[in-house]
């Protein structure tokens, strides 16, 4: 071993490369640092082995170290390529598979170098050239060596091109960083070219490790000085290129240094016309903007530009660009077009305002129920909505088929006599079409009906009930600079729909009120009439009750004395007087029956006849009646037959009335039958689940003609007027009987044949409901009073 200055130089190179590896390794998180560390390590390994090669004194040792150099030699280009890929943001291309593929040639190369004696594929012939105390390795190269060399140049070349492209692209903004990158990319080539071209004076030394080491040093310098690996200019470029915001970089001379496609698009100029030009020239289209931001270094605000007719909203930010001494080197201008956002925002705000206005309006209107009041409020609110005091409202008069003005405000206040035909004027047209109509130049409008030269803009809104137009709301602007735009018309139309509802509602309410008032009046009248009728009824009842009492008193005397006289006539032998006295009794009793019957009928008519329900034995009732009637029947030489089933049982009914009905029928039968048969039967029957008692009174008397039958049950009719005189009776009995039967849910019917007799059938339910029964205070003439 011997030490020469070359050995020292190479050793220093190796140490530097080691330092690079360590520095890079420590900054692993930075992009490209790991491959850079690998690169440093490879160069270091190569250089150490090279140092030993140079220090070797025997060919065997030289050969040995040369072989040891090879791992470093083959890894270096790959590490370089990896670094370039990482640094330019392409590390994703380095898949495991690709690394394995790329590693094949270097591995083969190393293996071939180490086994060269077997095949001489790397070095065909090895000679050693002793120069200046150096034993230099001087081979003739085998075929694989050229493969290896080609591969290495390819790798290094690719890496260098990537780095150069990136550096050139960021040249404008990161000039020093780019310079360092270009320097470090180019250096290894220079070294290699020098080595291969024998241009270096002195011994034939391989300068490639030196070059790589210098390259590494440049990169390390870049780490510290220019934060080369901290900022990745290219990645940042990509972001800026693809941003939707416009980005422009201006240097401290106000020249445009860089701009992205969006910014370029906004300027509508090719980039060659922009880059390097003065900013105020490029932005000459917006002179006030240039003026405004000429000396502004930091701002964030919203700007409104009027580009032609189009109003655009821009969110503009200017930030200062400083170097590492905090000096301002330029400005970064970023802007974003937020017009759509603003428009949406504006639309939302406007809609919200409209909604609020509509809501307030509906609240204000909804509580009004008087139609005129509602109409006035509609005009006032509609005016407030669009900011005018001039409005009116026509309502359709269906009878005249005309629009009649209801309310006018502002200039329309004095036009309260107006009537319009269908299609006449603006309101007439709105009525006809059912569509809103805005005329922004009324005086010049051919359809105008009134010569209002002061009227500028007029809008008519239909008010509908269902599909039918019930009115037209009109609003006007008198100022010449105001017009009704479609949005305002739409707003008023919405308002009109709501106002229509309110108006219809108010009208309905008014109608309802009127109807209610009328109904109340009718009800009051009915109530009054009912009261009057009831009072009259009460008066009638009281009168009848008093009449009954007052008539009974003299009747008592008449009937009493006629009885007494009969008794005395019998006792004292004045038998010839008896029939005459009996006539007095009969007449008196007839009068008494009349009183009772009239009282009953008057109650029935007044609906004051009440049922007094009780449960009684039907058989007992029949026996009792038979006993009472038998003398009457037998008096005219009639046979009286009473027949009923044993199973009649009890019934619930008004016993007094049942008795009265049957007594009436039996006494009729007795009256109209002579030397015949009167049969009284009763039976219980079930029909459709209901139980009935059927009473029959059958006689063989004079009978009733079909003509008489029609008014048999009518008041004050007797089958034969002559019969009345002959047989007595009030003619009210059958009418009252039928009323009683019906009150108890039954009926009375008759079959008859003139000269052969009649059959009266009374049909009553066994269980009369309580519907018609009530307080016992209700008056009823006692049947005992009637004979």
């Amino acid at each position, binding site marked *: 071993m011997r030490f020469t200055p070359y050995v020292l130089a190479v050793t220093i190179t190796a140490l530097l490369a080691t330092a690079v590896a360590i520095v890079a390794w420590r900054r692993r998180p930075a992009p490209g640092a790991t491959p850079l560390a690998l690169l440093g390590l490879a160069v270091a390994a190569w250089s150490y082995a090279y140092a030993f090669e140079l220090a070797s004194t025997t060919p065997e040792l030289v050969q040995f170290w040369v072989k040891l150099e090879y791992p470093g030699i083959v890894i270096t280009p790959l590490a370089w390529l990896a670094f370039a890929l990482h640094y330019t943001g392409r590390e994703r291309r380095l898949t495991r598979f690709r690394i394995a593929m790329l590693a094949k040639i270097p591995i083969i190369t190393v293996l071939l170098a180490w086994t060269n004696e077997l095949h001489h594929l790397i070095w065909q012939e090895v000679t050693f050239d002793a120069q200046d105390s150096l034993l230099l390795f001087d081979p003739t190269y085998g075929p694989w060596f050229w493969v290896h060399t080609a591969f290495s140049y390819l790798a290094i070349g690719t890496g260098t091109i990537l780095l150069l492209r990136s550096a050139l692209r960021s040249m404008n903004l990161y000039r020093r960083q780019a310079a360092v990158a270009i320097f470090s990319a180019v250096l290894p080539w220079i070294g290699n070219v020098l080595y291969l071209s024998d241009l270096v004076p002195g011994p034939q030394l391989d300068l490639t490790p030196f070059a790589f080491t210098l390259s590494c040093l440049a990169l390390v310098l870049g780490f510290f000085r220019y934060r080369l690996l901290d900022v990745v200019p290219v990645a940042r470029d990509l972001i800026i290129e693809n941003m939707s915001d416009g980005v422009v970089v201006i240097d401290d001379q106000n020249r445009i240094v860089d701009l992205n496609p969006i910014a370029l698009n906004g300027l509508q100029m090719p980039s060659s016309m922009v880059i390097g030009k003065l900013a105020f020239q490029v932005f000459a289209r917006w002179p006030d903007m240039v003026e405004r931001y000429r000396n502004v270094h930091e701002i964030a605000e919203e700007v409104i530009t009027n580009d032609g007719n189009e109003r655009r909203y821009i969110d503009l930010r200017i930030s200062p660009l400083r170097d590492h001494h905090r000096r301002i080197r330029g400005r970064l201008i970023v802007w974003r077009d937020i017009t759509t956002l603003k428009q949406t925002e504006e639309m939302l705000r406007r809609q919200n305002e409209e909604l609020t206005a509509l809501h307030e309006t509906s609240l204000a209107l909804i509580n009004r129920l008087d139609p005129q009041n509602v109409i006035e409020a509609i005009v006032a609110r509609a005016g407030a909505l669009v900011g005018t005091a001039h409005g009116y409202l026509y309502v359709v008069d269906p009878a005249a088929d005309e629009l009649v003005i209801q309310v006018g405000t502002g200039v329309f206040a004095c036009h309260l006599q107006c009537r319009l035909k269908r299609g006449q004027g603006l309101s007439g047209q709105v009525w006809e079409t059912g569509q809103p109509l805005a005329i922004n130049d009324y005086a010049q409008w051919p359809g105008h009906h009134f010569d209002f030269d002061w009227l500028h803009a007029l809008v008519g809104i239909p008010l509908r009930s269902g599909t039918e137009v019930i009115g037209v709301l009109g609003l006007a602007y008198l100022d010449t600079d105001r017009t009704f735009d479609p949005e305002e018309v739409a707003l008023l139309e919405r308002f009109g729909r709501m106002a229509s509802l309110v108006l219809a509602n108010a009208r309905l309410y008014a109608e309802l009120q009127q109807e209610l008032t009328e109904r109340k009046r009718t009800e009051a009248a009915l109530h009054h009439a009912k009261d009057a009728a009831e009072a009259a009824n009460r008066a009638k009842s009281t009168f009848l009750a008093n009449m*009954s009492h007052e008539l009974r008193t003299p009747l*008592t005397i008449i009937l009493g004395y006629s*009885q*007494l006289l009969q008794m005395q006539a019998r006792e004292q032998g004045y038998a010839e007087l008896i029939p005459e006295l009996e006539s007095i009794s009969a007449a008196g009793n007839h009068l008494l029956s009349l009183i009772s019957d009239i009282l009953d009928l008057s109650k029935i008519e007044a609906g004051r006849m009440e049922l007094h329900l009780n449960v009684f034995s039907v058989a007992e009732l029949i026996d009792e009646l038979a006993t009472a009637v038998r003398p009457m029947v037998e008096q005219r030489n009639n046979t009286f037959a009473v027949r009923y089933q044993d199973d009649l049982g009890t019934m619930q009914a008004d016993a007094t009335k049942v008795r009265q009905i049957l007594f009436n029928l039996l006494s009729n039968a007795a009256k109209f039958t002579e030397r015949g048969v009167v049969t009284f039967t009763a039976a219980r029957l079930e029909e459709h689940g209901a139980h009935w008692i059927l009473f029959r009174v059958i006689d063989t008397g004079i009978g009733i003609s079909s003509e008489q039958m029609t008014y048999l049950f009518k008041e004050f009719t007797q089958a034969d007027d002559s019969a009345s005189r002959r047989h007595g009776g009030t003619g009210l009995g059958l009418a009252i009987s039928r009323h009683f039967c019906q009150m108890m849910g039954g009926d009375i019917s008759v079959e008859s044949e003139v000269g052969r007799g009649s059959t009266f059938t009374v049909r009553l339910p066994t269980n009369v409901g309580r519907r018609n029964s009530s307080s*016992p205070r209700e008056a009823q003439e*006692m049947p005992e009073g009637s004979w």
Partner: protein
Amino acid sequence: MAKILLVEDDTMIKDMIARYLKMTRHEVLIATDGQKAIEIAQTEKPDVILMDMGLPILDGWQAAQQLKAAAETRAIPIIALTAYAMAEDQARCFAVGCDDYEAKPVNFSRLQEKIAAALHKASLKE
């Protein structure tokens, strides 16, 4: 043969009924108002009272009520004899304590039965 108190303010009716009762061999006491009826009932202790209702001074209902309230006259049967012939009038008579009821115009034979029944009932009580 019974002692009957006839309470009646109408002269003609009073005479007529009194004549009938006498003809049927009854002893007849007369009162023309409710107050007198109570006095006579207390002093004479009749077997039965025929009581009109529409009476001066003290009406028949009040008189009947007082007679039935007093221990000494309580046992005397009272037959209401009235032209108030409504069902409610009858009910009112029974309510004040009358034992029986006969509406005017009077059916003498029925009245006779009612007097007999009242006497029979009173005798059973004794």
